[in-house]
């Protein structure tokens, strides 16, 4: 746990976020990230993460700690934790997915990408553009052409909400 500081026998690592906050974690927790694991194997105990901001890093450390203590008996507890973990705004999910991608934590990447996919599945293209902060680069004529070619995919009602 984060509050225990008297764990002399355990190897510790320091992670430094893009906004210069430092976090001390157990090596066994950190190496679930391929990026951190590679650095640890090269002998580093201080890991600067120039692409990961504090806000995302706090959440990701929580995730790694939870998943490092995975046993047969706490399966349900982890499932509940994961469900709460992804229950956040799209912008938070995007920040987390960028961080998880940089850190190469594949199980977290899978969970985040699946969550985002499930949440955009029934949305309209307009809603998706807003959610992903994408400016449409089609001319109205080009867009009309693509819509026409895929007319069957536009049958029915779509979700216009942005959450």
């Amino acid at each position, binding site marked *: 746990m984060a509050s225990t500081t008297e764990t002399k026998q355990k190897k510790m690592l320091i992670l430094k976020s893009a906004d210069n906050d430092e976090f001390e974690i157990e090596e066994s927790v950190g190496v679930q990230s391929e990026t951190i694991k590679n650095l640890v194997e090269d*002998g580093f105990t201080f890991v600067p993460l120039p692409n990961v901001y504090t806000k995302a890093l706090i959440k990701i450390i929580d995730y790694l700690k939870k998943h490092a203590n995975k046993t047969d008996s706490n399966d349900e507890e982890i499932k509940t934790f994961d469900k709460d973990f992804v229950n956040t705004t799209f912008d938070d999910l995007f920040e987390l997915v960028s961080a998880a991608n940089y850190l190469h934590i594949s199980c977290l990447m899978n969970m985040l990408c699946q969550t985002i996919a499930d949440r955009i599945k029934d949305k309209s293209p307009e809603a998706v553009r807003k959610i992903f902060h994408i400016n449409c680069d089609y001319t109205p004529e080009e867009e009309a052409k693509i819509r026409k070619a895929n007319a069957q995919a536009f049958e029915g009602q779509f979700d216009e909400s942005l959450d």
Partner: protein
Amino acid sequence: MPAKGKGEGEKKEKGKTQNGAPEPTSDFYFPREIISNILCRLPVKSLLRFSCVCKQWQSLISKRDFMATHYAHSSILQHMATSSIIVQTRPKECFKHVLLLYKPPESVVALDSLYPCFFPGMSIVGPVNGILCVFQSPWGDVITLWNPAMRMSKMVKLSETKAPPEVPFFVLVGLAFDSQKDDLLILRIFCSPAVPNYAEALVRFDVGKTEFDKMTLPEDIATGGCKKYLGTFLDFLAILTWEETDGCHIDVWIEDGGWSQIYQIGPLYGFSRILGCLWNGDIVVEKEDDRKYNWIIMLDPMTCSVNSEVRAHNSEKGSFVTINCPESLFLIEGMTQVVNLQDLPDESACKTILRLAEQFCPWYNLGIPVSVDAISLSGLQRLLAAVTTLSNSHHNICEF
């Protein structure tokens, strides 16, 4: 790099300051690999709709490697509880070829007919890369490749494929993928009539070598008078056998270097026949209830419990086929949109479709090693296989 001393890494609690976090502006940047990782998990319908989000997404979705990743994801879904199943039935009254899409727990949806006119005795095989092959029994005519998720199809003309001089008994059609040639294959296997007092044999057609080989059957199956279903069960070649009595059991045999029986399921009541095995391990059976209604039932082979069931049309005997078909973005050049039958006058549409079938277009090379063997369980005297690859229109005949 010198390791930093312990104790310097004090965790600093921060308020919700804005420093650092990427601003949600129009130049919000996502690496392409992340976008691809998200989009490859979506159903085909969502992807087609999202191709108008921006040019980058459209170009990603139309890339071959994205299609392959997407197909891999949608295949994994089929191995889990969320199977989507294509059901073929030929109702007794009209002999029409009806194709249904069933995604438990949703209700069954009838799919648009591939033809603007009526062809009797149609059947279906596949899928390879999400593409199915519809053809007419017993001679393997009107061969049509079809991607149900994209609602696109194309009638294929098999060049120079003629029946052998002696009149064939019937023709088996198989769809396969040759991973060496990286090409889709359509197989037509011409079968001569069975000789009297034949012994049952299992014959396998090796797609890579374009050769037949004979496989031995377990003695219990070869000598017993039981009914058999041949298919793949959990990626193994499998034979499922049952007796035609009420309260019978289904025996599941798999081939893994030799035959072994792995399950016995039952007793089953009111059960008529086995329709197929699903990728998630379920066995699909047909059952008739007290009111003479047909049901298609998905059974869990371990517990014998019913995972889902659907009431089926009053179908012609033996016409049911159930197959897993993962959604796929793959198309074959020259495929056209499957049009709702009501939208078209019969005759002109039929002509258009037949004219399109005259063109023989190459298959897009896919690079996905899927090998499917064409297998026939029968006591046949002679087998001839006509193999047509789509890209070179080359054509082999090999004999067993």
